[in-house]
């Protein structure tokens, strides 16, 4: 009950939250395609390619946090690596991009691998 009252005192605006996560998803799917391009040009195969994707998409999340989220979030009194000022769900923020961009990554990876090394 008390948390409900707190939520009503400081309400969360659904539209802004959706806008934030949509912007982030856009960035993720776009960068996933670009990672696919670079993995294909580098000629990575099987595990090293997927590892490349995982590392770089996590790196995207970290950079997004450092550049866009951290400056205002830390100065407003949140702990470091706490995204609750702009996003609901920390797991979703850090790893949601992996599933999001996987299809785009595989498509461009296959395309450029085929174009470059075949």
């Amino acid at each position, binding site marked *: 009950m008390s948390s409900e*009252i707190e939520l*009503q*005192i400081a309400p969360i605006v659904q539209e802004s939250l959706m806008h934030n996560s*949509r912007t982030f*998803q*856009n960035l993720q*799917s*776009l960068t*996933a*395609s670009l990672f696919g391009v670079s*993995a*294909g040009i580098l000629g*990575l*195969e*099987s*595990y090293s*390619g*997927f590892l490349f994707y995982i590392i770089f998409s996590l790196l995207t999340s970290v950079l997004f946090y450092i550049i866009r989220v951290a400056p205002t979030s830390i100065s407003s009194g949140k702990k470091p690596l706490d995204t609750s000022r702009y996003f609901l769900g920390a797991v979703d923020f850090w790893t949601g991009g992996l599933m999001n*961009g996987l*299809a*785009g*990554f*595989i*498509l*461009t*990876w*296959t*395309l450029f*691998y*085929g*174009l470059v090394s*075949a």
Partner: protein
Amino acid sequence: MAQVPVQTIHRDPQLFYWILFPITIVMVLTGILRHYATVLMASAPKKLDQKTMREQRGLVHGINVRGNFHTLSKRSFNARRDALITAYESGAYLKDPENQGQPPPNPLSDPGSMEGMMGMMKNQMAMIIPNTLIMSWINAFFSGYVIMKLPFPLTIKFKSMLQAGVATKDMDPRWMSSISWYFLCIFGLQSVFNFILGNDNAANQMAQQMGQMGPQTAQMFGPGVDPNKQFLAEAENLAVIDHYSVLDNVEDRLLKSIRV
């Protein structure tokens, strides 16, 4: 340890220009076409007559009062609640009060609901027709070509899917035919469409099907729903609310926040 030799197949480089790029370009253009077809075919919401509008807005008013009661003072909330409950129970907002208590009309006989179904049919058609056309186009022109190699290994089970139309027994399942490039395009082009058309595009049928899988939004004013029952349920919901205000104890919270 016996190393399996890597299969190499010498392919004509022209395959890329005559198979890979046409399929990709056609897929992208179909997506764009589908997006604009959906935008054009979207029927404008039908104009409601005054009575229907009053019925719907009356119900929405009750729901909003119920959802935001904490911003009202006790007195004004009580006044709103009493007025709404009396109106709901007497059926003051109903479109045709003499129909009260009768079973709802058959949704199929209502012309208004037919229009909604037509809209759904149109959407389905916009998805199915291009897919069938492209599938048969690829099958007719490009079947039997091996065009690419996947950058990751797959098990033998995928062979029949990826190499449809290529009946070569010992070929590595990593080699893929044109039809499997088509499937890759279906799944992976969403990010391209996001980039070209903006985020809420209707270009990708996979995304739309995902959306339909999700929880169906409850139809509030759909055909076959008895508005009188909705009003009575809403009156009950309003009656059981235990009112409090966000301004309760606000002075304590203020003092606590400025204490040094």
